[in-house]
């Protein structure tokens, strides 16, 4: 009998632990209780929140950038993090999107962002149910009156990354690691290829898709294959799969510091991922990063919505001209840094003025010429 009781206690303990873990994402379950009765007070404050995809708000990439935008908006408008200001919910799996969006809508947030094209279905569903709430869809289009869609011209940022790669490579072999085949990643690929071709027509580009955004070991194996076949610059548009690329490049660099193993980051400036210490001196394998300023877009849309100009049912496209995409600082260790900067400047002026239209699909790439 005693044993059975203990067994019961044990199983409660295990169950409690599991539920505990689920709370990890939204850390203020307890606070919510206390703040529900201040609902009237929040009528005048504009509250904004976001749902991350499985990456989390410190994925050093997409979600992090979106969260930065929301934080900036919150601070500029004197909001506090939490129920009555700005907040986020992290998704642990694809199944969480709908639940998270729904619970934020029920907490009366005025604007709720869904980050990542994987959330398209969920936003569509919840926006249909919660017709009072306003949603921002980043990276995909949802045609609903209460949804504003945000797209980026990723091809323009990756075109500039391609220019940098094409000028940096010494072996004339360049690699591209894609996450999953989709419109967004295709824009990255097409732009990158166009950028390389524009400055270095002799270079060949080795393209491989990992078909996963969270499998570092696949990224590492692909990178290993590319570097050992003579590729010296690899660009990734693969989220956390790209961590494997950085690991491989760091390891190879540590083993043979005289050789060049460059990696190009994506979405936000990933320069911190490339630090490798060799015999006391610090090297960095990140050549540059193709920036997708989700923060700019999120901040911009929040401001519009606050002023009452919520572009519901419309799709806003952020490109180089709107500061929605860009290229990070070029690594100082690159010998041709000055040349790259001149070329990048030249091409970004052309793109901004509309003289150069960067191909956004592989089909357009075939007929593309930089002249």
């Amino acid at each position, binding site marked *: 009998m005693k044993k059975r009781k203990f067994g019961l206690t044990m199983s409660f303990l295990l169950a409690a632990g599991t539920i505990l873990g689920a709370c990890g994402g939204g850390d203020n379950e307890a606070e919510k209780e206390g703040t529900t009765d201040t609902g009237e007070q929040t009528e005048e404050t504009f509250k904004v929140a976001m749902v991350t995809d499985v990456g989390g708000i410190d994925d050093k990439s997409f979600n992090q950038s979106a969260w930065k935008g929301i934080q900036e908006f919150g601070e500029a408008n004197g909001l506090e993090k939490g129920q009555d200001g700005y907040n986020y919910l*992290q998704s642990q799996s694809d199944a969480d999107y709908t639940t998270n969006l729904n619970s934020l809508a029920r907490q009366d947030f005025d604007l709720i962002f869904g980050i990542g094209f994987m959330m398209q279905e969920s936003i569509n569903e919840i926006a249909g149910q919660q017709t009072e709430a306003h949603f921002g869809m980043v990276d995909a289009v949802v045609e609903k009156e209460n949804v504003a869609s945000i797209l980026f011209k990723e091809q323009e940022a990756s075109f500039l990354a391609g220019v940098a790669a094409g000028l940096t490579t010494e072996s004339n072999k360049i690699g591209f690691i894609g996450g999953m085949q989709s419109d967004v990643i295709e824009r990255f690929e097409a732009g990158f290829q166009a950028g390389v071709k524009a400055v270095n027509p002799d270079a060949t580009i080795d393209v491989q898709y990992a078909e996963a955004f969270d499998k570092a070991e696949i990224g590492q*194996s692909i990178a290993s294959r590319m570097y050992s076949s003579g590729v010296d610059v690899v660009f990734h548009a693969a989220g956390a799969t790209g*961590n494997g690329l950085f690991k491989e490049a760091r390891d190879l660099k540590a083993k043979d510091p005289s050789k060049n193993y460059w990696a190009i980051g994506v979405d936000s400036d990933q320069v911190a991922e490339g630090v490798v210490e060799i015999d006391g001196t610090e090297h960095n394998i990140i050549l540059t990063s193709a920036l997708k300023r989700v923060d700019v877009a999120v901040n911009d849309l929040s401001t519009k919505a606050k002023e009452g100009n919520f572009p519901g049912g419309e799709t806003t496209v952020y490109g180089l001209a709107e500061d929605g995409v860009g290229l990070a600082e070029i690594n100082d260790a690159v010998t041709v840094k000055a040349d790259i900067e001149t070329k990048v400047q030249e091409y970004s002026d052309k793109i901004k003025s509309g003289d150069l239209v960067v191909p956004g699909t592989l089909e357009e790439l075939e007929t593309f010429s930089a002249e």
Partner: protein
Amino acid sequence: MGLMDILLIIIPSTLLWASPLILTALGGIFSERSGVINIGLEGLMVIGAFSAIVFNLSTASVLGNWTPWVALLVAALAGALFSGIHAVASITFRADHTVSGVAINLLAVGVTLFLVKLIYDKGQTDIIQKGFSKIDVPILSDIPFIGPLFFSNTYWTSYFAIAVAIIAWFVVFKTPFGLRLRSTGEHPMAADTMGINVTKMRYIGVLLSGALGGLGGAVYAQSISSDFSHATISGQGFMALAAMIFGKWHPLGAMGAAIFFGFAQSLSIIGNSLPFLENVPNVYLLIAPYILTILALTGFIGRADAPKSIGTHYIKGSR
């Protein structure tokens, strides 16, 4: 790309992928040979990965290049402690082994993510600076042909895992301890009659599986992912479980199975550059490892015989 180039990529990456699987599968063998089903290997890997990364991040400045190795020890200890829950529940309190194992898996992810949030106030840790990195084994890498293939551009952990597999084989099949461990898994009553403490042997089996599972997770985290997040361990524990069954609960068999899985995975990555596979669409290459696994499990190995008394509780005096 010549055959040599292909092998130069495939072999190190096969070994890199296989080493966490080998260690974890060995853990499964110790537990199941003693008669306790351990489906919680995934959870034990999570605990190992988590404790190794946290330890590594907080002591790298003090321990320098020894950090990853000490972190392995810490992870093994943490894994053993955590598997204690499984041991207490399924041996002393006679809970169903599978249910307890599933609870271990869920609990591990929950607890570690909660702790990461508590310690670092974010969803994943930073990247570790002192992980396992690529090495050329001194002297051996100079051997023509074999040197570049097996001893260059590889990781110490690969050899570590293979060495542990050989030690495990010796312990399980060549020592009195191994004989006792196996006997409690085959026929606990007979073992008890011969004066073997069944409960003690089973506890040792489960705790060893925890230590090895923790090692597996730590090796994965420190040589591949370099950080800890919810996606760090996603299914490797179950792959290890499959490797254990595929290897018929034999340490060297499990090692072979794990290497085979690693090989299939690497092949799917490099397939595009092989002359005879370059026209095959990428998606077929990516699913190939799983198809190969199913084929291997059904076709090649024949019947997989589990230890006879696996999953049962031994109650002294009952018949």
